[in-house]
């Protein structure tokens, strides 16, 4: 069953593409399951760090695929994983865009949205939980996660701010022996 890294990237992210309701933020547990647990391409903390890097980069939230591809196979891995993550869902969007021109009724869209939004949000929570455990940052790390979550929940500040403050706080805590 030797597929080569590129073939595996295409299969993994090509299928995850169609499961990514709400974007990559819904599929962190699945990417973790496949990349860390099944393929063993990296350990959990490395995965959590790459996820953090993907969060800091600008752009739509498909960058998790890109950075994982980059980590396992350099720039070509990045391009292959990104294309695999983008192509299936984009083809579906294209088909729907053309198909919908024939409907004037958007009842179907409303029902699908009603059905998918709660699932997507539950998956997003699951993504946060999996990323938190994978980070393996200890008790002080849980405190940082909780504080960042609380700030993000309460204010609409640019996510890069709590991210930077959380990182700085963790480093400071490490310096005084908390972490």
């Amino acid at each position, binding site marked *: 069953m030797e597929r080569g890294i590129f073939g595996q990237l295409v299969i993994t992210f090509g299928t995850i593409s*169609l499961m990514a309701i709400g974007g990559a933020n819904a599929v962190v547990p699945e990417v973790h399951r496949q990349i860390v647990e099944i393929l063993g391409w990296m350990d959990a903390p490395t995965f959590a*760090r790459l996820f*953090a890097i993907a969060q800091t980069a600008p752009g739509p939230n498909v960058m998790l695929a*890109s950075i994982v591809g980059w980590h396992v196979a350099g720039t070509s891995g990045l391009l292959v994983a990104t294309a695999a993550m983008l192509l299936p869902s984009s083809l579906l969007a294209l088909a729907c865009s053309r198909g919908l*021109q024939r409907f004037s009724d958007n009842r179907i869209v409303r029902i699908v949205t*009603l059905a998918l*939004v709660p699932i997507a949000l539950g998956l997003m929570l*699951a993504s946060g*939980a999996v990323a938190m455990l994978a980070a393996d940052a200890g008790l002080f790390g849980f405190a940082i996660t909780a504080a*960042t979550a609380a700030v993000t929940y309460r204010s609409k500040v640019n996510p890069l701010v709590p991210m930077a403050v959380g990182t700085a706080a963790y480093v400071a805590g490490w310096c005084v022996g908390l972490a």
Partner: protein
Amino acid sequence: MTTLETATDVPPSLPALFTGFLKIGMMGFGGVGPVARHIIVAERNWLDDRAYAELMGICQALPGANTVNAAVMLGDRFRGTAGALTCVFALMAMPLLALVAIANVYDAVSDHPLAQVALTGAAASAAGLILGTAARLLTKAGLARWAWLMAAAAFLAVGLLRLPMLPTLLVLVPLGLVAASLGARRI
């Protein structure tokens, strides 16, 4: 047919689509959603507010990142397949370059002990970010009771029990569709 009506009469050219989506990708540090709306509606006048909301509604009902789907659909509507390709390429170009730059810095420093600590802190913070966002969206979504059950089931299955996602979705999505159509009929 009201979906995706253009606010302007002449569809934007390929170069205009390219620069518009390049800008969306470039300025979207910390989330592209608000930037995309600003450029598509306010700056370029490609869609009015209502058409934009309708577009995002459809994008939400599809897998994939909303902005990528919006790029595909707008590009295709204005300039066909070439338009869709142009928009997606423009949207992804700068973020990918930025990511390569960040990744190279990561590579250079990741063995340094202090960098390891910082990256662990960043990972813990990123987890909090997504948890907080999910919690905020959940409380603001005005979910019906069945929808809360669906969200809880998705979280439990994938987050705690660590079940594979495909079978989970194959169970939850049809259930959600049934519940949503029953609910929609009642309203």
